């Protein structure tokens, strides 16, 4: 039996169980509020959001692979397209696009058209250094690490900070091939 074809993001999004968008937004907002209260330092909160995203990403990748039926991407360009077209659509229901490739093909930007995490959100003056959606950068970093790619994901443009769009930069640092894990003398 030939393997099944990969499914599109929309098809999967339609078939999975979804949660109310407002509930999702408000829950995330509550988490960030609580982190700010507990940690007080904006940089600490950014780091903690990234770490939380990383922990989500390492599990999310299996769900992504199982539901979307994709096989290994040939190169980083395909990977970025997969994240933007299938991944974001499947999990958040938003379409994202990939642009600004550099000459090597190792660095690109993912532009989010809309971002369900930031509905109703305004940053007060006390939190000016906060990357409110930093959990997303952690998720992408964690997920890619489980498929053997070490990446660095940062926010270039953030509408909560006054820019006109949400833009994430994903930079491939290196690919880590599989090594035989047991030492020969054991």
């Amino acid at each position: 039996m030939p393997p099944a074809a990969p499914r599109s993001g929309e098809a999967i999004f339609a078939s999975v169980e979804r949660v109310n968008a407002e509930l999702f937004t408000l829950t995330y907002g509550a988490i960030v509020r609580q982190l700010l209260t507990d940690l007080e330092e904006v940089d600490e909160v950014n780091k903690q959001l990234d770490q939380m995203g990383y922990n989500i990403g390492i599990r999310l990748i299996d769900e992504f692979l199982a539901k979307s039926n994709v096989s290994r991407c040939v190169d980083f360009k395909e990977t970025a397209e997969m994240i933007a077209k299938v991944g974001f659509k499947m999990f958040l229901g938003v379409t994202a696009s990939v642009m600004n490739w550099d000459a090597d093909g190792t660095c690109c930007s993912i532009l989010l058209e809309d971002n369900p995490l930031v509905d109703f959100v305004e940053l007060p003056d006390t939190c000016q250094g906060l990357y409110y959606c930093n959990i997303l950068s952690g998720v992408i970093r964690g997920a890619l690490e489980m498929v053997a790619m070490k990446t660095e994901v940062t926010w270039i443009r953030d509408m909560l900070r006054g820019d006109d769009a949400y833009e994430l930069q994903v930079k491939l640092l290196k690919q880590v091939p599989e090594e035989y894990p047991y030492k020969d003398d054991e």
Partner: protein
Amino acid sequence: MQFFGGSEISPSPPVPTATGNNAHMMYIFNRNGVCLLYREWNRPLHTLNPQQDHKLMFGLLFSLKSLTAKMDPTNAEKGNLGIPQLPGQGCSFHSFRTNTYKLSFMETPSGIKFILITNPRTGDLRETLKYIYNLYVEYVAKNALYTPGTLIKCELFNTALDQYVRSIA
């Protein structure tokens, strides 16, 4: 089959056509060689202690993957034998059969390896292994009490797996 979340599992499971336990054993490994799960339903002969058995199985599959990629007549670019490959790269072998058993294998791009050993008359189990991967996602990956990279101790997963495996032809 109803799951806690109620979400639809795709692909849908193959229709059960036989009764009784057709599978012998199942292994799940992660990319670091840690044996996440070992289930045994019908294994009359034990030759090695569990540690050695897992290492042997993992080593066998690691070498087989490397060998099959190297011997691939259609792929122009071939690595040298022994050079580590990215998980999922190269051609992937999916089963081998002897006169007493059939071993079916599936590796995900995230490095999770599913190995199912059944009687030799079993057909192509790729869809079955995909369904088991979906079970893994639902019961293990989404389980907040499970630490990734450690032994799987989820009763629900074990039960669902046993129930599903019993239905394999």
